[in-house]
């Protein structure tokens, strides 16, 4: 794939890819480099392409240095740090023409590494480390730090910044700090002495990361649950959502243990499966705690029965679906947006659910809070549809802020006093004409008692098999979904609104779409962009769809699920919606979007098909 942002100054605008062996400690070296660049004020992204494996399989880490602050994957590799002999040949092929390849020259690789259009740099890393350190495991770990030193010299990354980061990590372990500092220096000095440093692709200090952090979406969402006042988390471990509960638990250990008594103001329950996890969330929410479960596609499949109960019996609950590649077990460590339809209509019978689509970790934090407010306001399940790319990769985000005046919206929940003033309490009567009934909690008053059931019930909460009584409730639930459209976040609109071409997208496609818009603008093609943040769709979505003649729906799945949902749930003319799809399992880059849009224009030269599959 040619570089569409070509003919540019390579300073602070290039991609390094590290090819490693899983379980060898490379992650810490790679994030050290990423964080050092971030601390030099240069925007950066880090994407981890890891296997479903503990140790031994190939793994890659991609750092994009992006002075313009793009969040998407770049779709090219300028520098390959090839540390895995098993993938050398593949890794070599991936380097862009004019790029660089760095390898461990302790063992000659001349036959494998013959490519005339790239610069191959050999560094005898294993030899350097073996001569200076003892212990097999130690040497494996420190070899990573040594290549970090080489990269620091080649890219002109400030060595003191890296040392500072290592000080923070190993400050309390002087022996580790000493060996790491020495290994870093070893690589750095070797490069300075034997290689031409720096390369033309290099890092120069900027001031574009102030007021920003590097954080992954699962951590941000877990933190959001703490700030939302969630007290019960139930879950079953599943990649890529596990780190969300790990984060919640970690933050609770920090903020939610009473210093005087040691009592926990939270409960985290590792359930026996996802069926139980969602059941626990329903039980806790029904009983007045803010409760949630993080999961991924296979977990949602298992939760379907309970989700229907929650919808019909109107029990609030929050589900984080950190989407991975399906169908079935799929590719658990790759990213996709394949659960849109699954979540929108989860469970049998007529059901429709509220979905939120965060586009980055910052939104994971705020939408986590929003999800609890919506779930309790609307008394229904709310899904936060994140994905592996957002959930597990570090993204540069604006500093998270918290308004101390925030108080949870508990929705229509009657107190003992309010119940006392009522003649009689009925659970499912629409008293306010917004289709949202009032609820009561156990333990408050016998006057508030009602029977929660998934079987047919009338608006008074009693069992029924009477068609009319059943329909009163079912029709109100439909109206409640219309009410929900007024409460959910509105889409984000970019552009003047006067183009004939519109792009519609969700979630982690956002970075690629924004970059594509810039590329197209440089080619004098102007488009309007609407990023949908929630389902049900509101009036803004309808009006964007009606105002644009051609609309590209950009999403990361094979079957155009967002497009399907738009055709089902809005009045849009189906033929206006063209799909641009990426379902390789890797985060989307801007090229298929640029190509897809250009392909429909009369003067467009060579380009891939509209349904352009991701080119790699």
């Amino acid at each position, binding site marked *: 794939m040619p570089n569409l942002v070509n003919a540019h100054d390579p300073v602070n605008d290039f991609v390094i890819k590290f090819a490693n062996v899983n379980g060898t400690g490379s992650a810490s070296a790679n994030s050290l480099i990423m964080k050092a660049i971030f601390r030099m004020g240069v925007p950066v992204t880090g994407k981890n392409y890891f296997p479903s494996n503990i140790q031994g399989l190939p793994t890659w880490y991609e750092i994009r240095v992006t002075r313009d602050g793009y969040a998407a994957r770049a779709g090219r590799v300028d520098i390959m740090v090839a540390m895995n002999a098993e993938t050398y040949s593949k890794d070599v092929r991936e380097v862009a023409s004019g790029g660089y390849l760095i390898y461990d020259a302790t063992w000659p690789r001349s036959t494998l590494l013959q490519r005339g259009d790239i610069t191959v740099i050999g560094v005898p890393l294993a030899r350097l480390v073996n001569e200076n350190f003892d212990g097999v495991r130690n040497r494996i770990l420190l070899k990573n730090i040594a290549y970090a030193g080489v990269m620091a010299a080649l890219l002109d990354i400030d060595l003191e910044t890296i040392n500072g980061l290592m000080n923070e990590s190993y400050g309390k372990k002087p022996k580790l700090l000493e060996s790491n500092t020495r290994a870093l220096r070893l690589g750095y000095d070797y490069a300075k002495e034997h290689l031409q440093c720096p390369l033309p692709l290099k890092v120069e200090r900027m001031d574009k990361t102030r007021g920003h952090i590097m954080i992954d979406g699962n951590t941000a969402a877990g933190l959001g649950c703490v700030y939302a006042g969630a007290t019960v988390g139930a879950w079953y471990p599943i990649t890529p959502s596990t780190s969300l509960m790990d984060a919640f638990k970690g933050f609770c250990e920090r903020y939610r243990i009473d210093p005087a008594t040691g009592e926990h103001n939270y409960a985290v329950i590792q359930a026996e499966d996802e069926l139980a996890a969602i059941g626990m969330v329903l039980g806790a929410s029904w009983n*007045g705690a803010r409760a949630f479960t993080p999961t991924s596609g296979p977990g949602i499949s298992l939760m379907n029965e309970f989700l229907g109960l929650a919808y019909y019996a109107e029990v609030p609950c929050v589900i984080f679906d950190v989407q991975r590649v399906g169908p079935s077990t799929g590719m658990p460590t790759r990213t996709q947006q394949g659960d849109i339809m699954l979540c929108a209509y989860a469970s049998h019978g007529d059901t429709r659910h509220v979905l939120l689509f965060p586009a980055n970790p910052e939104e994971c934090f705020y939408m986590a809070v929003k999800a609890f407010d919506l779930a309790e306001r609307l008394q229904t399940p709310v899904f936060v549809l994140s994905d592996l790319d957002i959930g597990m990769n570090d993204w540069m985000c604006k500093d998270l802020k918290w308004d101390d005046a*925030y*108080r949870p919206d508990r929705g229509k929940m009657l107190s003992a006093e309010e119940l006392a003033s009522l003649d009689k309490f009925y659970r499912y009567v629409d008293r306010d004409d917004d289709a949202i009934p009032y609820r009561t909690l156990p333990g408050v008053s016998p006057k508030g008692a009602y029977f929660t059931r998934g079987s047919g019930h009338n608006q008074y909460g009693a069992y029924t098999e009477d068609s009319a009584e059943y329909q009163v409730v079912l029709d109100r639930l439909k109206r409640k979904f219309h009410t929900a459209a007024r409460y959910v976040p509105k889409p984000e609109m970019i552009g003047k609104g006067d183009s004939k071409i519109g792009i519609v997208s969700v979630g982690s496609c956002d970075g690629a779409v924004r970059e594509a818009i810039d590329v197209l603008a440089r080619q004098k093609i102007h488009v309007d962009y609407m990023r949908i943040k929630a389902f049900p769709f509101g009036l803004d979505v309808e009006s964007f769809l009606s105002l644009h003649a051609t609309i590209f729906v950009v999403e990361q799945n094979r079957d155009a699920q967002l497009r399907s949902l738009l055709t089902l749930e809005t009045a849009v003319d189906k033929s206006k919606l063209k799909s641009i799809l990426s379902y390789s399992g890797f985060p989307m880059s801007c090229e298929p979007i640029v190509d897809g849009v250009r392909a429909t224009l009369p003067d467009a030269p060579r380009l891939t098909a509209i349904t352009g599959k991701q080119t790699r």
Partner: protein
Amino acid sequence: MSFINKPKVAHPSLPTNALGMTRRQYEGSMSTLCAGCGHDSVTAAIIEACWGLDMRPEQLVKLSGIGCSSKTTAYFVSGSHGFNSVHGRMPSIASGANAANRELTYVGVSGDGDSLSIGLGQLVHAIRRNVNMLYLIENNGVYGLTKGQFSASADIGTMAKKGEVNQSPPIDPVLLALSLGATFVARGFSGDKAQLVPLIQAGMRHSGFALIDVLSPCVTFNDHEGSTKSYTFTREHYHPAIEADYVPPAQEISVDYPQGEALPVELHDGSRVVLRKLGASYDPTDRSAAYSFIEQKLKQNEYVTGLIHIDEDVSHEFHALSKTSSVPLNRIPYEKLSPGNAALEKLLGRYR
């Protein structure tokens, strides 16, 4: 099925409990089960137990799954919240509800289909987690609502109404619970209310998971000759071995027990359950002895009833293990839950 909807007006001469409430005030809606169903007797025992415990209705939470037995939570204590969940999944609802508010009394009513087949996974994990609740299995060996298929508790050789003979070995809830380390395991018979009521009361007051397997014959699909879960067979083979009397806190043990036969066990709230044993050597606090005794009796076709095992060690209960706040989680004010913006600003340093 009884078609007479009884008026809620109570006769002034009806006895009242310490709250001034009559038994009638602990009733629920009219049962829709078959006339003579064992489950209705269990419902009556629950009503009696709650009345006797002076339970405030809102203190009780009723939970169930799906099936005939699970319907019964609507038939007692209408002043309590009820949650009729999905098939076999009541334990997870109970676990979550209990996590949110540890102060209420949770009673789950389930059946042998709901608990031993579709819901076996959730049952065993609720036991393992030692969720503080009473879990009643109304055990009749058949699926009633779907018209008489064998359940997982059906004995080998028992005959279905249409003549089919069961060949798969039964899962016995008592042996199952004992093997999992349940802290309160009992068996009762729907036809023996005098024994069942104190068992229910003790189970409600026990700190941890209390399981009572109640033999509760299905009059419609499993009450014929050849069935090992019929009224006749059960009456002939149930063996009230370990009687239990429930004694509320601050009340003297008034009954005179013969020397060596009474074993009082103190429950966490100061109440006691006094066990009366037939065999003087039987020790219900000895789990493995209880297991072999029950297993041996089952081989002889004898259903030993009564409080079979009790371990009143409160430190094993879910909240004790989780170190959960003594104030129920659903009542902790938000101000105590949010770390606030100052803490957030400080935390962000970690991500720079």
